[in-house]
């Protein structure tokens, strides 16, 4: 990577910069004439004599002559504007391209950092470097050369013009330039140093913010907020001091410049005026000179700004880049090389005198030597901190030895491209990471090394993609299409997507995750238009389940949805909509102020009655909850009214006492009306909605569906006995009803029935598939840590690695799952290699070879019986468990 900004600019944009220079150079003659022409207009056309004049062999009178010159002037204005427009756009594009290249290069470098580097730099530092700190660099690069030349050329043009007019005037205008050119770099130097310091401090600041986000739990748990706030404030104070100092100096430079440029007109008027009065110079020339001078101060000022900006950006660039060239970074070839064929790894894994030291001081591994066939099952055990996990990572080629050599099938492992190590080997560590994508995509990550099938584009999309690819090519970016199919089906030994899904589900079984994904699937949705056959079979399951639920043992558990009956276990809102809201137009919290709902209620004549019910609910809630302290858990759990709103409702009740419901203000009525929608007859048992009102609510339900305007239809998916409801979860689609209130273990019993029914109709896998579409959240936050581990393991399994390296990856799981997964993986890798760094020595019993690592050395190796000798390290480890 170029450590010098200008070298970076020349290396990647010399041609474009030169072209821009040419265009800029071509624009100068026009610029010059646009300064000259006003003088001609004043001196020859307005104040001129001896008309008609001959021009291009044609005679011109005074007025046509004036018009001709003015017309020429107009053309020049247009030409100059056009040049400027074109140059600006070209510069902007060039800047964007260079910025893109720089960012891409920096990001690519992060991907090649040696892993230990991530212990030293935090994301808090890296992120602003690539995002915010790069931004001004890009803007600057566009005009790095051309901008300065343009401003400079403009200045020279003006100066030449001035000297041509009168050398004394020219001298007057430029007299102070040498002084400025001497003093300003001197002042700027100190500002540069301050800028460097500012960049460093701001980086530390973002690091601190990142840290506080990650450590939020600790800060709360130890009441450390005050300390953190003080620390942050201290850093902000440092930044403030630096910035203030910068402002002082920067604006002093500005002040000096302004002062000097204001001084020049002083000379101008004095000397120019003197010359005109003495008749040594025409007044037209003075006006021309004045206009030229006005135009001169602008480029001069910009030239100075440019200089300041250049210094600023140069420092930013250098400071960013130096963070991205750590020692031991992986070569680009090793990361991205794509060998023609990647043969399976056959042979031995040989470590000869391998050592690893951190920062050149602390020895983590020292003189480690061993050799075993790659298809053997090997356990690595040892006390924590003894170097076993480093050894595991080293075998997976995630860290490089600092001494000795590790060879894989006869090749130096540090020279193998990632295309080999990352496909033939698989590694899962103690804290597998889940990316913000679906659960399925997270597992498939193990198969996505390169695009395997291009995406199909139609006309416009194809043109767009070609254009984008060409642009990526120009900027040295990746030209791989992210929309292509990236899945390496061959690695998973499957033919197509369908087989892959089957394999995925099998892997879920192997890592004990299938049940979890099934549960996620039940709570997920499917798109019936894209998966009509699944939707149809879910409807079959609905019928089958309905038959089962009719059996006496289950009869009381579910109350089905029925167009003609009021659902006692559903809320009033559900009964009224008889469907699932999509988005928040018909959200239960907002039903009372939905105009259409209000119109329907008015039409059926239910509004007053429901407000009355709302008043009763409010009364009961005030009676029950008024004595509870605010914020008591019951408010959230049981109440219709939050503790904050309770006093408000007390007031509404008082007003209703005085004026009656009809006399209330609209907003009070709306408040009361919002309550009954949340009422569930069976659960709340308030007895407020009698059979007659239920009948009228059914009437409202019908009216709601029949009269709904077209534009509202997309906001609610109505329940249909024989139709799939795309807005509801799979589980709700199968149930098509509400769990009955108060039946012991109803949820569990119904859950078991659903599972049984789905198995019978062969739909379980389809539900699991829907579960694979579950979005796991940022860093997999919506999953538990054991679930993330299992995903990490499944990711490895899918591509059938020659050697699977498991680094304490199951330590987090419960012991049943640990044993289960250990067995499954041993079986799956039966004829391939398995290296398992175990956190418990007893689990090593069935491994053919055991390496005992302690104090950075392999102290024992052999079978279980050999290493488990009296007084040995292994026996000690075993005894401690």
């Amino acid at each position: 990577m170029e450590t010098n900004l200008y070298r970076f600019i020349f290396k990647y944009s010399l041609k474009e910069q030169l072209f821009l220079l040419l265009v800029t150079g071509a624009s100068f003659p026009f610029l010059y004439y646009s300064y000259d022409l006003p003088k001609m207009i004043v001196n020859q056309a307005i104040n001129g004599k001896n008309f008609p004049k001959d021009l291009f062999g044609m005679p011109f009178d005074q007025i046509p002559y004036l018009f001709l010159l003015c017309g020429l002037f107009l053309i020049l204005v247009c030409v100059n504007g056009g040049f400027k427009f074109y140059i600006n756009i070209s510069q902007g594009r060039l800047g964007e391209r260079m910025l893109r290249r720089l960012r891409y290069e920096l990001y690519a470098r992060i991907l090649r950092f040696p892993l230990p580097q991530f212990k030293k730099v935090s994301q808090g530092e890296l992120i602003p470097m690539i995002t915010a700190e790069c931004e001004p660099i890009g803007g600057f690069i566009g005009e790095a050369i051309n901008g300065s030349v343009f401003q400079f050329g403009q200045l020279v043009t003006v100066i030449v013009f001035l000297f041509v007019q009168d050398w004394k005037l020219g001298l007057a205008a430029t007299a102070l330039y040498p002084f400025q050119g001497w003093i300003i770099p001197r002042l700027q130097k100190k500002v540069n140093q301050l800028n460097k310091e500012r960049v460093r401090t701001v980086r530390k600041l973002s690091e601190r913010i990142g840290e506080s986000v990650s450590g939020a739990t600790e800060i709360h748990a130890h009441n450390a907020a005050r300390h953190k706030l003080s620390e942050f404030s201290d850093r902000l104070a440092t930044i403030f001091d630096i910035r203030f100092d910068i402002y002082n100096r920067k604006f002093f430079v500005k002040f000096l410049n302004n002062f000097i440029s204001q001084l020049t007109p002083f000379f101008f008027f004095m000397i120019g005026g003197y010359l005109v009065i003495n008749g040594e110079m025409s007044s037209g020339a003075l006006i021309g000179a004045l206009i030229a001078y006005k135009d001169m101060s602008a480029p001069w000022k910009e030239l100075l700004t440019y200089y300041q900006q250049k210094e600023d950006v140069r420092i930013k660039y250098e400071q960013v880049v130096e963070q991205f060239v750590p020692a031991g970074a992986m070569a680009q070839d090793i990361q991205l090389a794509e060998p023609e064929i990647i043969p399976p790894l056959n042979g031995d894994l040989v470590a000869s005198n391998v050592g690893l030291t951190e920062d050149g001081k602390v020895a983590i591994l020292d003189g480690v030597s061993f050799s075993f066939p790659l298809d053997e099952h090997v356990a690595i055990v040892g006390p924590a901190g003894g170097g076993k996990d480093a050894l595991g990572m080293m075998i997976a080629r995630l860290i490089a030895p600092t001494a000795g050599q590790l060879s894989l099938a006869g090749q130096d492992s540090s020279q193998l491209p990632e295309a080999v190590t990352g496909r033939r080997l698989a590694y899962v560590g103690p804290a597998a990471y889940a990316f913000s994508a679906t659960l399925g995509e997270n597992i498939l990550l193990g198969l996505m090394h390169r695009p395997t099938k291009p995406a199909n584009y139609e006309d416009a999309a194809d043109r767009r993609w070609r254009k984008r690819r060409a642009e990526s090519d120009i900027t040295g970016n990746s030209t791989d299409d992210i929309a292509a199919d990236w899945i390496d089906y061959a690695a998973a030994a499957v033919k197509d997507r369908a087989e892959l899904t089957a394999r995925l589900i099998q892997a879920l079984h192997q890592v004990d995750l299938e049940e979890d994904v099934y549960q996620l699937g039940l709570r997920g949705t499917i798109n019936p238009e894209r998966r009509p056959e699944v939707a149809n079979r879910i409807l079959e399951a609905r019928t089958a389940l309905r038959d089962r639920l009719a059996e006496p043992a289950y009869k009381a558990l579910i109350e089905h949805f029925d167009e003609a009956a009021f659902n006692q276990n559903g809320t009033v809102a559900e009964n009224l909509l008889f469907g699932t809201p999509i988005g928040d137009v018909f959200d239960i919290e907002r039903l009372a102020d939905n105009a259409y709902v209000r119109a329907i209620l008015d039409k059926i004549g239910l509004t007053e009655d429901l407000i009355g019910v709302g008043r009763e609910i409010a009364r009961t809630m005030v009676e029950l909850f008024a004595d509870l302290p605010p914020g008591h858990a019951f408010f959230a759990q049981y109440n219709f009214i939050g503790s904050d709103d309770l006093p408000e409702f007390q007031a509404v009740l008082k007003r209703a006492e005085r004026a009656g419901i009809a006399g209330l203000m609209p907003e009070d009525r709306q408040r009361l009306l919002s309550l009954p929608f949340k009422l569930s007859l069976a659960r709340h048992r308030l007895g407020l909605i009698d059979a007659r009102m239920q009948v009228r609510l059914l009437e409202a339900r019908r009216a709601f569906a029949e009269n709904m305007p077209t534009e509202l239809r997309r906001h609610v998916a109505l329940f249909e006995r024989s139709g799939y409801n795309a807005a509801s979860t799979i589980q709700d689609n199968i149930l098509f009803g509400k769990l009955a209130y108060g039946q012991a273990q109803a949820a569990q019993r119904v859950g078991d029935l659903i599972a049984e029914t789905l198995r019978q109709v062969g739909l379980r896998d389809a539900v699991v598939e829907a579960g694979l579409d579950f979005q796991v959240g940022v860093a997999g936050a919506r999953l538990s840590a054991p679930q993330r581990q299992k995903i990490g393991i499944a990711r490895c399994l899918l591509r059938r690695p020659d050697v699977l390296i498991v680094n304490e990856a199951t330590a987090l799981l419960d012991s049943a799952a640990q044993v289960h997964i250990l067995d499954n993986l041993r079986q799956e890798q039966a004829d391939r290699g398995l290296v398992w760094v175990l956190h418990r020595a007893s689990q090593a019993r069935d491994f053919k070879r055991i390496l005992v690592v302690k104090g950075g050395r392999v102290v024992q190796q052999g079978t279980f019986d050999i290493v488990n000798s009296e007084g040995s390290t292994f026996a000690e480890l075993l005894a401690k468990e």
Partner: protein
Amino acid sequence: MSLNEEVELLRAIPLFAKIEPAKLKLLAFTSERLTYEADQVLFNQGDMGDAAYIVMDGEAAVLINAPQGRIEVARFKRGDIVGEMAILCDVPRTATVQAVGNLTTLRVSKDLFFHLVTEFPQMAIEIMRELAHRVERMNIQLREAVIKARN
């Protein structure tokens, strides 16, 4: 059964006799009414306790795991409170409780239970009395068992 009917039922139980109806309504409203069929289990011995149960209707059997299988040691009837020990002392359930025939209970969560006990000392005394009765009963059973074992 509506809330008001439940309140009437609760008032008939000695434990709650001296508590004002509004508070009983809160108890009824915030508790879950659960119905069980014969042989369904309320909770198992060894589970962690998160709620107490008030028997509203029907009967529940108290079973203890013993080497020779489960032994029934007591029955709870309408108005009895079950499972308060585990939530009072934060110990695992000391016995399994199972519905004998159809059973209706009011499930009182731990939070609510403590709220009521702290707010109504009368209720705390009633619970103490109930627990003392149980200890006395157990002492008698223990005495009989010891005598039987000596013979």
